[in-house]
């Protein structure tokens, strides 16, 4: 959007990241902790894309489509793919722990043996 400075997107990303981090520290339900991690990933994605979009800002005008220009978008594509894999495995682990221990309180999961 015109009229919106890059710093606005970066500030939003920073705030979302911090809120996600707060959730990770604060929460005891592993699923919600997991969701907060997703939130942090998304905050990072937002900054990636903002940098990609505002890349070479001083030049103004049209910018040739070179692949350095696409790096931010590529990073986001791979973050999304890895996040999908991570969620599948992570939720599998949580379900397995729940079946074994009958609890999902993160503070109770201190033993290493199954």
């Amino acid at each position, binding site marked *: 959007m015109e009229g919106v400075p890059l710093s606005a997107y970066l500030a939003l990303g920073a705030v979302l990241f911090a809120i996600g981090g707060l959730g990770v520290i604060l929460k005891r339900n592993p699923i919600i902790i997991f969701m907060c991690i997703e939130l942090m990933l998304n905050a990072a994605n937002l900054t990636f894309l903002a940098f990609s979009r505002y890349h070479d*800002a001083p030049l103004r005008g049209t910018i040739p489509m070179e692949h350095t220009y696409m790096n931010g978008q590529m990073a986001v594509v791979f973050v999304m793919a890895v996040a999908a894999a991570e969620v599948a495995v992570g939720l599998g682990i949580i379900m397995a722990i729940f079946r074994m221990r009958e609890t999902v309180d993160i503070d109770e999961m201190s033993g290493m043996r199954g």
Partner: protein
Amino acid sequence: MSSQLVVFSAMSIVAVLSAVGVIVSRNAVRAALALVVNFIVLGVLYFTMNLELLGISQVLVYTGLIMMLFLFCILLLNLGAPQMLEETSGLKRYVAVLLSLVLIVLVLTQVLGPVAFSGAPGSESALAGIPTAPDGYGTAKSVGTEIFTNWIYALEICSVLLLLGIVGSILLAKRRG
């Protein structure tokens, strides 16, 4: 304040409020719902940056599949008493808030400061606004061309990772014995 900035602020307020909702709500389903709202707003923000493919992928991957998976697990576990999970000790809470405030200040001073106020490259027009997007920026064609040419190895590694993820989650889900 331009009209675009007003729209942006409205959307970012929704995003921040829903993010706060994720950690404030006592109920896991409500937290998931707040996160869905947040992801959709982020997708809309991507649209405003001409990133149509990534915006729709955000909605498709995050809200359509990932959050649905979260919701499925929450309902499946049916975490009987969410209030049991909510007893955080007072000290921990204050420490956490303090830490995240420190994080925000750190990011603001170290990243935003240079971008917005100092003489760092791009600072001047970074305040002024967005540069004109090149032709075809953010379309499926440009992203696809980029992935399948310059990033092909990363893509292959990523696909192997996804395959491992599938196999791993099936192994975890199967009851042993």
